[in-house]
């Protein structure tokens, strides 16, 4: 048993490392592939020739490719994500300063989605086949299908512009926690809504699956109250696939966060990448994308490990999917 766990751990670690390495190679390849003169592409046509030459030398763009790759890899491993072309600030610092905003947004959204999705799923499962179940099923699909940036725009229109209940743009005053919380509500809801649908559906189907199992029947036969059977025993087993879903969903959530941050003009990783992109500030894009990928891999790894800790059956099966 222990050897299996160790093997599983090792294989997950190797895959994670490979993903990060793949991302680094890809980002490096992209930067090397920049068509045309890299200085013109990165700096724009307004750059003077002297500045362009100096820039090329400083960025090491005149060195052979393998040297640049080596430099890039060793820099990243020592935490040096390069320098912002425009301000000269280190990219790592810029990324770190906006990361909390994206964190609060994505994890807030996950929390909200679990809080709403799990009860809805349990309700649907315990009222299987009823009108409410069918309506919930339809609402769940609608939540899943509609893109989060559309939800974001519509929420903004209704709650900020028409009803004037919540302030719209930005993350709020840094010292005013209440202001920050109020400005977080709409972006969080926009990001969470699709996941409410996903979670509700998944909890419903896995609840139904678990409820059909012999051990639940045995509990009922022993006269354990239905409420206890549902919430304590069935729900616990039914939550396992939900955790896996969330792990796989973090990537999509981060992607959705980019769009939501832009709609609501919130600072964050997405906004940082987008703003850098519009001025072709490739080092910032590169560094921030890499951080997103690493974040994503780490979260996935944690989810997978907690998954196998919660459900011992997974350890034997190898990859938790």
């Amino acid at each position, binding site marked *: 048993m222990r050897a299996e766990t160790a093997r599983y751990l090792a294989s997950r670690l190797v*895959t994670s490392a*490979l*993903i990060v390495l*793949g*991302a680094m190679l*890809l*980002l490096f390849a*992209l*930067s090397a*592939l*920049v*068509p045309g003169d890299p200085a013109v*592409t990165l700096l724009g046509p307004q750059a003077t020739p002297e500045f362009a030459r100096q820039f090329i030398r400083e960025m090491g763009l005149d060195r052979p490719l393998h040297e640049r790759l080596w430099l890039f890899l060793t820099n990243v491993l020592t935490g040096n994500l390069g320098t912002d072309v425009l301000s000269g600030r280190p990219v790592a610092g810029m990324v770190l300063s906006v990361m909390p905003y994206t964190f609060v947004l994505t994890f807030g959204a996950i929390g909200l989605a679990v809080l709403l999705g799990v009860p809805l799923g349990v309700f649907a499962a315990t009222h299987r086949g009823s009108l409410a179940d069918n309506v919930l*099923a*339809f609402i769940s*699909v*609608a939540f*899943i*299908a*509609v*893109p989060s*940036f*559309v939800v974001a*725009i*519509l929420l903004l*229109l209704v709650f900020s*512009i028409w009803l004037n209940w919540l302030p719209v743009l930005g993350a709020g005053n840094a010292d005013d926690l209440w202001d920050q919380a109020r400005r977080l509500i709409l972006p969080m809801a926009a990001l969470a809504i699709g996941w409410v649908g*996903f979670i509700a559906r998944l909890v419903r189907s896995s609840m139904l699956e678990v409820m059909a199992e012999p051990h639940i029947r045995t509990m009922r036969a022993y006269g354990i109250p239905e409420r206890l059977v549902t919430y304590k025993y069935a729900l616990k087993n039914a939550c396992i696939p939900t955790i896996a*879903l969330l792990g*796989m*969903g*973090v*990537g*999509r959530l*981060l*992607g*959705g966060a*980019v*769009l939501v941050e*832009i*709609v609501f003009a919130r600072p964050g990783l*997405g906004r940082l*990448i*987008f703003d*850098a*992109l*519009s001025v*072709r500030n*490739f080092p910032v*894009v*590169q560094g921030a*994308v890499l951080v*997103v*990928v690493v974040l*994503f*891999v780490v979260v*996935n790894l944690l989810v997978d490990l907690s998954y196998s800790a919660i459900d011992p059956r997974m350890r034997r099966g190898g990859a938790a*999917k």
Partner: protein
Amino acid sequence: MTALRPLVQVLRQVCGTVPGALGFAIVLVVLGAAIFAPWVATHDPDRLDIMNRFAAPSAAHWLGTDHLGRDLYSRLVHGASIAMAVALSAIAAALTAGTLLGILAAWMPPRGEAAVLILFDVISSFPSLVLALAIVAVFGPSTFMVVVIAGITLTPHFGRVARAQVLTLRSAPFLEAERILGAGLPRIVFRHILPNIMGPLIVLASMDIPVVITIEAGLSFLGLGVRPPLASWGVLIQDGYQYLSDSWVPVVVSSAALAVATLGFTLFGEALRDAVDPRIRQER
């Protein structure tokens, strides 16, 4: 007509449920608008009419006009063409690449197979929008890049299903018989494997249409996909969003079009899956 009978049967089953029928109806409307856009539209989608900015919906302009006085209804109809063209090309590309890789993986020695599977894991675990940002940063925004990004993102979906299907097929007696009779790999793949694994792959393709529509609209909304003045739904939403203080009609109308279309294709795809094979579960 005999060839069409299974298709008719499946569609009847799809329309047997309320969500399925609703989805099928929306799909037909969107497809109709996309194919017959020049005839369905009432105006030239790009014709400016500055005097008539933000006109309210009327008999002349069914859904009103946008910030440049262009007819919103006609732009939405042309948006359907763009969405469908992008979705179908991206899915065709992903279907081809994914199926080939999936079949290859099933046939390769374990180490090669593992490499392909890791590649699939890497692609599908990448936050695709973030990857898209990096790619667009280098190559610049274009409709073609949207197709490439969506195609790469979806390839693992098809690859995994194709591989799983081949693995279950490979030891089937009829294939063994073919091999003993001396059939080569190409014959086995094209004559026997492909026709047998196409069903689930087509279901998957239909379920991925709304995914591509969303990717296209999202990138275009950011100004990183289909470029204005082309009337992609994402571009229309961006236009409307920019002029939200002047009029809320364009943004609501174009968001609603996108939302209804993705919902319709999702409902249809899920009904199709349930009709063809309830066991297939979309990996997300």
